[in-house]
């Protein structure tokens, strides 16, 4: 992660990893007129817009793959190369070459789940960067990312009233079991443990998962009561009731988070992080 980027900022830009955020800020600064808003604000507006488009487009392909459909139809390396090529600026809509793909993988810019299957959110980040940077065919990605830098980040809160802490989505198991996790990146719901609000405004989960199918979190009656004393009237010793109450609580607790994800809230956030805002405008190409 770029040392200048305030970690508190990262979840707003999911599924982009830190170095991609920093790199796109630099690219936007160079391409936009001086009167424009700061590059972070501009980037946030673009992420909000294109994130929804990426999810809309990727979802059926990912669903086909998740449900055992053929790689020739669903999400795959070939699909990603073809889609990225079609979205590149200019008239050439040829798929990205295998050589470029190999280079991106070697530089940590694209992560794989297993052979032939790119990580869904890593692929989404590439597509998102491609849509945001319409200026040139190349250089829309940072030069490289270390394995630690490849993660996207989500919001977490360990208990009611506790501070909201950004956390790597791939490392939620390190958190206390009933830490509430949420993200505006709906593609999180392609990963085990994450569920989506029915109105498609955010994805959410408890931090620790017991199993993905059927979905079961590591919950205890005491933990749930800490989040909502109203659960005391439920038979929480019954594992099914406990899980159902956990899911209900997730949705109820997620409601107040919705307003915290809009553009106005982000601007307010930036106002209280003024030093970071000025740093955001000073990145150079190398992220120093």
């Amino acid at each position, binding site marked *: 992660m770029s040392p200048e980027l305030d970690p508190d900022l990262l979840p707003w830009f999911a599924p982009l990893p830190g170095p991609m955020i920093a790199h796109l800020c630099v690219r936007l600064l160079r391409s936009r007129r001086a009167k424009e808003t700061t590059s972070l604000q501009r980037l946030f507006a673009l992420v909000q817009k294109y994130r929804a488009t990426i999810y*809309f487009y990727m979802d059926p392909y990912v669903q086909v793959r998740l449900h055992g459909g053929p790689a020739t139809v669903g999400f795959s390396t070939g699909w990603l190369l073809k889609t990225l090529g*079609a979205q590149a600026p200019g008239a050439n809509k040829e798929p990205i070459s295998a050589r470029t793909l190999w280079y991106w993988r070697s530089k940590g810019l694209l992560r794989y789940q297993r052979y032939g299957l790119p990580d869904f959110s890593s692929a989404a980040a590439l597509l998102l960067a491609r*849509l945001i940077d319409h200026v040139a065919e190349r250089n829309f990605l940072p030069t490289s990312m270390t394995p630690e830098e490849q993660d996207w980040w989500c919001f977490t809160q360990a208990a009611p009233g506790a501070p909201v802490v950004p956390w790597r989505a791939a490392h939620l198991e390190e958190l206390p079991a009933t830490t509430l996790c949420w993200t505006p990146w709906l593609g999180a719901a392609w990963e085990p443990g994450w569920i989506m609000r029915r109105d498609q405004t955010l994805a959410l989960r408890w931090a620790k998962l017991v199993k993905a199918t059927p979905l079961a979190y590591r919950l205890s009656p005491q933990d749930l009561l800490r989040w909502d004393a109203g659960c005391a009237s439920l038979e929480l010793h019954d594992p099914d009731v406990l899980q159902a109450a956990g899911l209900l609580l997730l949705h109820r607790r997620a409601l107040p988070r919705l307003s915290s994800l809009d553009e106005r809230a982000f601007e307010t956030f930036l106002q209280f992080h003024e030093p970071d805002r000025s740093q955001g405008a000073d990145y150079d190409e190398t992220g120093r």
Partner: protein
Amino acid sequence: MMKQDDDLEHYDPEAYGYATENPYVIDPDLLEEMHRLDLQGRLFTRAMGGLLAERPDFSGIHRVLDLGCGPGEWALEVAREHPDLEVVGVDKAPRMIEFATVRALADRLPNTAFQVADVTAPLPFADQSFDLINARFLQGLMRPQEWPRLVKECWRLLRPGGLLRLTEAEPWLTNSAAWEQWTRTLMRALLLDGRTFSPDEAHWGVVFMLRRLLAEGGFQQVQERAYAINFSFGTPAHEGICQDLLISVRLVQPFVTQHLSEWTKEAVEEVRERMEQEARAPGFCGLWFFLSASGERPQQGA
């Protein structure tokens, strides 16, 4: 001025200095365009009172064709709500068709089929093979002289008693200087490209042609339903329609620049930003009119 000749088949756009190429005015491969069309489709279906307000229960309909289906929003929704129907969608853009096909697979809708086909050319289906043909907002694909041919083709594809429904819109009306400036510019570019029925850039001129197109095509019991979406500041449709139209400004820019060189990318972006600002003003008022015309292929005299 448009020719007074009533025979649209003989309407010659070149006589009015129009171009003759026929690409879609927006690059259909763009993900943003697919997403925009999907959101727009949902907004308009809601505004039209459902998937087929003319016959909400789809009675007597077994096989449906959606022309210019785009990412498949309408066709998939019909298939979802009426699993007993067979729904076919066609579009000229292969990426749209691939996407719609995969959506159907992901949503487990085996009663759908999507196929690449050009609505301005003969369609690859047998005579009298559909009970309903739906076409919404084809105006970005069509030139005036192509409409009668399409209606004739729909006649061929419909069974006796089958229904053809055409829905088209005219440009939105607003009290915003930037929006009105852009509307005139876009209409001017469409006029220069030979895509409007209008003698000038005042409007698209397609909605009042629909009844005539259907009647001249031999369709009977022609009905018209007019709709208007109020997208003034503070209305439920404000955000959705503004988002749709503001995205379209950017996506249609290459087409506009091609015909009006003074409308560079920067100039279009500048007006788009003003449109965005003016749409956010509490005094912003906007209304978008559109019209559905439907007609039946008669049982006899086919």
